Every structure is written in structure tokens, then in C-alpha cells.
């Protein structure tokens, strides 16, 4: 809310509308943090009620980078509650495929079965996008000894066929690796001889001493052949993830069932490594900062935020704001006496600089679109529930 003197019963001027977007940042405090675009906040003449046309006019999306798995863009003109909903949906509710069940036929490595199975679950997978979207949910029944979970399960009344692994809800991958000494016939080097000669390198002495994610073999089932073949096969995003270490005679023989899930259930299902936003900083120079002060002022910010300019009339160097996007809002300039009352720091409350980094299953920009669509689906679902509630069903 602006200071009392600025309050009136007239609608806000363009300048006031711009001013109310800014959150104040002072040396030790922040101010004007709460949303102020609620009807009634400024008296009856200021129309802050929801208006789709106005929203559509004010909403801006600007991309800063759009690589497959790393997108950065500005979303301008939405409230924090909306931007935060998109972010939360991205992290916890966009479904992805991950290893859920690990069937261990043999594991004589040093790593324990349960630790190993957990490790497998965390390996990010990728594959044909069309196929991944075609896949349905697999509904895992609760453990036989968890009576509470079983009661909740029965109450929900799920379709039993969803709990049977099939080609449209389960992807099978296997991993069979056995470590042995390198031999002249098979590997072109004699591991034991090398060891006697003093080699300490397991890569030289043994074969399969390291188990990597690339050793996972996709086993297509039924219709999966048509979605996940060649380039589109299901595979780890990064083939070089070290899963386990072996020594001669040790072996791992497992089969994994991968299913679709969401990040709220387990972080391994989260489609993003990071999905975050920050508010665009604002720097307002209220009185000219000149000469050596200007140089010092520039050093208070990351490179590129403040530039020096020659004042055409006086010939003095002057500090000007160049690119606030690069600022980290360190508040360093507020610590120096010479800049007192000359600069005002802030952030725009409705300018969200999103950064979405995908784990590699889906493209970052598609993930954001999915998150918006999921929020919409939520709203529509509850519209149906509200209809049912009013009809008394």
C-alpha cells in the first residue's frame, strides 16, 4: 500500500500502478511484500476484480534460454500464488517413468540388496516421448502386512486390472553383469600377469569391475516395440552413472519394473532437477552518482549490472543501470555512506524469472506447459465435484 498521503478514492495512475509492483528492499528489512491487487485495497474506484482480457493483455512471457533440458524464461503479470502453483506442480505432480520394483536373482556384490534397489530407483530414464505419454498408471497394491493401507486401498475402489503389470503400464529392464579376471583369449590382456607385474588398476586386471547405468538392457513387452525402438528405446539419461563395483567372481543379475509415478510419491519421479523462480530486481538511482563514487558503485554489483556513462553536459562519469536481470540483490551498495538516499533497491512482485532444468525424460518447456495443464485439470475436476456436491450425489 502506498503511503497515506498517496491514498485517494480515484483510480490509480499509471505511475502508481507501476510503483505498487515493487517490493522495497532496505539494508535490514523488506517492505510492501503483500499482494495489493485485491478489490477493495485502494478504495472503490480502483478496479482490481478478475478480468480475463486485462490479465491477457498484461501477461508477458519472455524466453532467455530454451535448450532441451534447461529453459529460462520470465513470466510477468501473475500473482505469486499462481507462479508458485506452477512450480509446485512441476516438482511434485508431473508424472515420469522410474524404476519401482527390482527383482534380485543374484547379488554377490558388496552393496546390499536394499541399498542397491534404492540406487536403481534413482537412475533417471528417458525414451520415446510419445510412448511415455501413452503409458498408463500402474497401481501398486499395498504390502500384505499393512492393514491400514489395505483398508484405504479397498475404500478407493480401484480397477484391479491396473494392478497387473502389462505392456501399457510397466517397462522391464534387466541388468546382468559378472566380474572376472581379464584373459588373453577374451580380452587381449592377461589380468593376472598384469597384477603380478604390479598393476593396481582394476580396469586393467578385471573385466566388468564397474557396473554402469548403460549396462541396463531394455526388454520391450507387447506394444512397447512400436513406441520404444531404436532411438526411442528406454535407457538411462546418463549412461555413465556408476551403479556398483565388482571383483572377480561377484555378479549382479536383476530385473527392474519401471512404472509411472509423481514426485509427491517419491522424488525419483520428479521430472525436474530444479524448477525455481526469482523476482526481477529493480535498482533506482534517485540522485546522480558521479566520478569515483560511480566506479565504486559499479563494483557493488555483479559485472554488467551498472555501467559508467559520460554525462554530455558536465563531462563527468555517471553510474547508470544497465541490466538488473544479472543482479543478485546483495545489498552491498546499502552498506556505504556515500550512496545513502541515492539508491533504492527493490524487486518486481509480478515478474518471475523461472529456471526449469529437466532430468532428461521430457523437454523443459514441455514440462512447464504440462504443469499449467495439470493445474487446469485440477480446477476442472473440482468443478465437476462441485456440480456433484450441489446435486447431492
Amino acid at each position, binding site marked *: 500500500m502506498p503511503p497515506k498521503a498517496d491514498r485517494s478514492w480515484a483510480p490509480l495512475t499509471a505511475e502508481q500502478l507501476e510503483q505498487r509492483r515493487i517490493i522495497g528492499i532496505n539494508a535490514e528489512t523488506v517492505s510492501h511484500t503483500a499482494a495489493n491487487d485485491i478489490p477493495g485495497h485502494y478504495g472503490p474506484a480502483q478496479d482490481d476484480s478478475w478480468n480475463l482480457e486485462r490479465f491477457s493483455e498484461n501477461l508477458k512471457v519472455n524466453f532467455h534460454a530454451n535448450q532441451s533440458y534447461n529453459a529460462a524464461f520470465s513470466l510477468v503479470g501473475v500473482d505469486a500464488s499462481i507462479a508458485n502453483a506452477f512450480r509446485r506442480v512441476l516438482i511434485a505432480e508431473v508424472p515420469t517413468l522410474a524404476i519401482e520394483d527390482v527383482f534380485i536373482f543374484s547379488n554377490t556384490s558388496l552393496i546390499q540388496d536394499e541399498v542397491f534397489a534404492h540406487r536403481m530407483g534413482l537412475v533417471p530414464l528417458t525414451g520415446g516421448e510419445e510412448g511415455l505419454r501413452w503409458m498408463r498408471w500402474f497401481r501398486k497394491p499395498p504390502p500384505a502386512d499393512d492393514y491400514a493401507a489395505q483398508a484405504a486401498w479397498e475404500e478407493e475402489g480401484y480397477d484391479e486390472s491396473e494392478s497387473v503389470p502389462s505392456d501399457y503400464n510397466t517397462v522391464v529392464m534387466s541388468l546382468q553383469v559378472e566380474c572376472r579376471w581379464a584373459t588373453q583369449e577374451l580380452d587381449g590382456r592377461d589380468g593376472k600377469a598384469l597384477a603380478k607385474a604390479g598393476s593396481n588398476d582394476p580396469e586393467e586386471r578385471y573385466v566388468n569391475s564397474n557396473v554402469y547405468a548403460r549396462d541396463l538392457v531394455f526388454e520391450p513387452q507387447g506394444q512397447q516395440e512400436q513406441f520404444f525402438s531404436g532411438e526411442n528405446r528406454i535407457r538411462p539419461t546418463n549412461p555413465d552413472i556408476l551403479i556398483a563395483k565388482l571383483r572377480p567372481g561377484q555378479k549382479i543379475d536383476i530385473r527392474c519394473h519401471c512404472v509411472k509415478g509423481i514426485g509427491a510419491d517419491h522424488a525419483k519421479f520428479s521430472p525436474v532437477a530444479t524448477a525455481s523462480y526469482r523476482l526481477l530486481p529493480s535498482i533506482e538511482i534517485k540522485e546522480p552518482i558521479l566520478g569515483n563514487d560511480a566506479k565504486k558503485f559499479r563494483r557493488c554489483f555483479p559485472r554488467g549490472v551498472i555501467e559508467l556513462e559520460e554525462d554530455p553536459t558536465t563531462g563527468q562519469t555517471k553510474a547508470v543501470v544497465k541490466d538488473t536481470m544479472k543482479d543478485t540483490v546483495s545489498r552491498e551498495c546499502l552498506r556505504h555512506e556515500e550512496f545513502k538516499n541515492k539508491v533504492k533497491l527493490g524487486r518486481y512482485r509480478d515478474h518471475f524469472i523461472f529456471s526449469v532444468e529437466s532430468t532428461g525424460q521430457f523437454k523443459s518447456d514441455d514440462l512447464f506447459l504440462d504443469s499449467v*495443464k495439470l493445474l487446469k485439470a485440477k*480446477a476442472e475436476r473440482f468443478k465437476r465435484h462441485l456440480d456433484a456436491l450441489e446435486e447431492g450425489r
Partner: protein
Amino acid sequence: MSQNGDHEMTDAAAGAEIDAPVKVEKQRLRLLPGSSDTAASFAFEKEDHTLGNALRYMIMKNPDVEFCGYSIPHPSEAVLHLRIQTWDGVSASEVLRKGLEDLTDLCDVVVDKFTASRDEFNASHPEGVQAS
């Protein structure tokens, strides 16, 4: 990434059905006791701050609303309570319906703008990054 983008929060429900038979959805919205026409509390099952805060904002944008707030009464129960009080005898359920509809419209606008901006950026930046 289901067909209709519709699923539950913790243990995902109705997802990628394409030719699956249409199931009756479990009712997840309740009216809490003590509610009247103009001052009502709704309980949303299996919802959290994601929908709660976004919906609270959309409803507060409605000038007919005197008060709107949400809470999650207990952290280990996936239930969201939403309180709506209105001015001048306006129905709280209608206000909730308008809030949900406004949120739907907002999402459509964001999708359109985002897609347009992305396509424009991709056309002018084949490398995917800005030259700086």
C-alpha cells in the same frame, strides 16, 4: 503426462486412459458443517497449497467476496479447507465455481502466451540460448 492431464496427488488416479471405460470419480469435495449459503467452508480431499493458494487468490479477486482463506488442518492428512464469506447474499458455491472457472481461463491464457513466445524464441535462436 496423461492423456487428459488428470490425476490424484499422492497415489495417482485416473491417468492415461484412452480407451479405458469411464469410471465414476470419487467425490473429493465436501461442505463442512456449520456452513450457510453466504459463508461456507469446503473440504478438498488430496489437495494442498498448490490448489489452495492459487484458488484463494482467484476467489479474493472477486469483489463479492468478504473473506477467503485456506488451511491445511493437519500435515499428515491430505485435506485442504477453504473458507468463503460473501457480501450481499451472494452464494458461496457460485463464488467457488467462478474461482475455479477463472483459474481454468488463466491457465488457458498462460499456455497460449507461453507457446507463442517459445515458438518465436526458437525461430530466432536455433541454438536455444541468447547471444550476449
